[in-house]
């Protein structure tokens, strides 16, 4: 059937990523409004374990493209396979996650299909003509733009993690399975030599539900320990970020930077510790659902964006937060 709504289901270490469930939940209403099927597409090998979950979260059909050569992700290989499937089935819409993999893969697929794509969207919807009309941030969120793809197909978009709420699981709802034996992709000119694990095994900033960030007032790299301590009591889904000032001062590595020249994040709770709130930092975290600012300077611009502020020394505030959260968690 042509004109289906497709989502690309990313997985890691044999498990579906949360983005797959978010995309299914968000795309369900698109498929309903268009009167078509919602299809999850997944690439790799040994994928059958994921089919049940994709069905329970709303997929009408799951396309499994298996080949030993797709065991590890490679842009050129996955782009050939995914574009090949899209050419064959002609979906109306193809959505993916704005994750490291999705951001790498989707533009290449769009190029192969000669179609348009909207990156890192924060809203997916249909317009009056039933065209996908996603909204995406530009200038790190200082502006928003709504766009559509009137002619080319499929209409492609990647969606920012944590934007779409995951709908309740429907136990027993099953998806139809279409297993496709795809050809081994060729002419890759790329080899994945190895994957080096990070020093700290934590959730990525872009996928975190709680972020505790430190700024220039952290004074030293070692002091970030109090932020990690707080992160630990919050539990999984929590990680630590940094402002550009903290990164440039050598207190934190570049991959922890939140802001226009770092990561744009979207957690449920963002706690800014000793961050003044430069426009380039605010741009990277302004869509956080709740923002807490802790700063000695009552005039710091960060307080303008914060839901809750504490004017005071972060070194006095943060350890108490850690103690209090620990107590609460112990009661739960």
């Amino acid at each position, binding site marked *: 059937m042509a004109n289906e709504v497709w989502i690309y289901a990313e997985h890691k270490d044999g498990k579906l990523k949360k983005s797959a469930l978010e995309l299914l939940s968000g795309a369900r209403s698109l498929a309903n409004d268009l009167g078509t099927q919602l299809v999850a597409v997944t690439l790799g090998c040994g994928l059958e374990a994921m089919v049940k979950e994709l069905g329970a979260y709303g997929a009408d059909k799951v396309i499994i493209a298996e080949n030993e050569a797709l065991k590890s992700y490679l842009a050129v290989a996955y782009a050939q396979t995914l574009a090949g499937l899209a050419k064959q089935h002609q979906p109306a819409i193809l959505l993916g996650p704005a994750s490291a993999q999705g951001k790498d893969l989707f533009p*290449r697929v769009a190029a192969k299909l000669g179609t348009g794509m909207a*990156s890192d969207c924060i809203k997916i919807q249909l317009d009056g003509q039933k065209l996908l009309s996603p909204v995406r*941030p530009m200038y790190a969120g200082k502006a*928003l733009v709504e766009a559509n793809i009137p002619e080319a197909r499929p209409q492609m978009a990647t969606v920012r993690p944590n934007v779409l709420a995951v709908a309740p699981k429907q136990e027993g709802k099953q998806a139809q399975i279409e297993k496709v034996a795809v050809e081994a992709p060729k002419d890759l000119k790329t080899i994945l030599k190895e994957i080096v694990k990070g020093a700290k095994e934590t959730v990525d900033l872009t996928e975190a539900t709680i972020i505790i960030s430190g700024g220039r007032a952290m004074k030293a790299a070692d002091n970030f320990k109090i932020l990690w301590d707080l992160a630990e009591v919050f539990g999984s889904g929590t990680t630590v970020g940094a402002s550009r000032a903290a990164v440039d001062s050598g207190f934190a*590595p*570049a991959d922890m930077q939140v802001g226009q020249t770092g990561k744009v994040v979207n957690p449920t709770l963002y706690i800014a510790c000793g961050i003044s709130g430069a426009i380039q930092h605010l741009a990277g975290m302004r869509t956080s659902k709740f923002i807490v600012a802790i700063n000695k300077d009552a005039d710091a611009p960060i307080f303008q964006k914060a839901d809750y502020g504490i004017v005071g020394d972060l070194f006095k505030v943060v350890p108490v937060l850690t103690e209090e959260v620990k107590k609460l968690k112990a009661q739960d």
Partner: protein
Amino acid sequence: MKIGVLMKQVPDTETKIRIKDDASGIVTDGIKWVMNPYDEYAVEEALRIKEKKAGSTVAIISMGPKRSVETIRTGLAMGADSGILIDDPAFEGADCYATAKVLAKVLEPEKFDLLLCGKQAIDDDSAQVPQTVAELLGIPQAMVIEKLIISDDGKKATCYRRVEGGAKEVLEVELPAIIAAEKGLNEPRYASLPGIMKAKSKPMKEVNLSTLGLKAEEVGAKGAKLKVKKYSLPADKAPGKIVPGEPEDAARALVKMLREEAKVV
């Protein structure tokens, strides 16, 4: 090696963005234009490779209005050898696909051994052009790279690609390839005064719609697959509340509010 760097001129990160009355774009008056920060890493990396490999050249390629010449000159002042400005009114309003199409047309006959660029431009934040150019040229890509090693024979590159959770994929790509820089790849140099003087006499080529042999329908707003409907500003948050009291007391009160009001703990 013949190295090409794809560079874009963007508003400085401190810019306050305003939207035009008809919602068709941003107000560009008074903007300070700079080299896209991620492209600075690409220029720097190109220059470091050039310094290691005798006989290498670095060209800066930029698509944009006439003012982009100043930013190309910044790259030349840092040490690049030549510039190409791709400018035509017909290119305006392009999406990533239409942009990549023009770039690919410029790049194809140049036969670069290596193409470097930033992982994304901080104006439209699409992060699509490098991959699209790679596909149109039929060459591999390595995106979000924070460490790069070119083999002695100049035929391969080992690229450390940053992925989620601090992990890195180590990719080996055959050259030519497009390699897109992440922050941390290097520390870009400043242009020296002699560098700035020399840059003035370095070659700058200008190409446009007709010199490239492209049709107006396939580029710019007409050739865009993704059509912009409207721009807007994000809704401003209502000001929040300051939790009163001594730091320790405020911290206790805050945790209570986060649980009871915000329900996030």
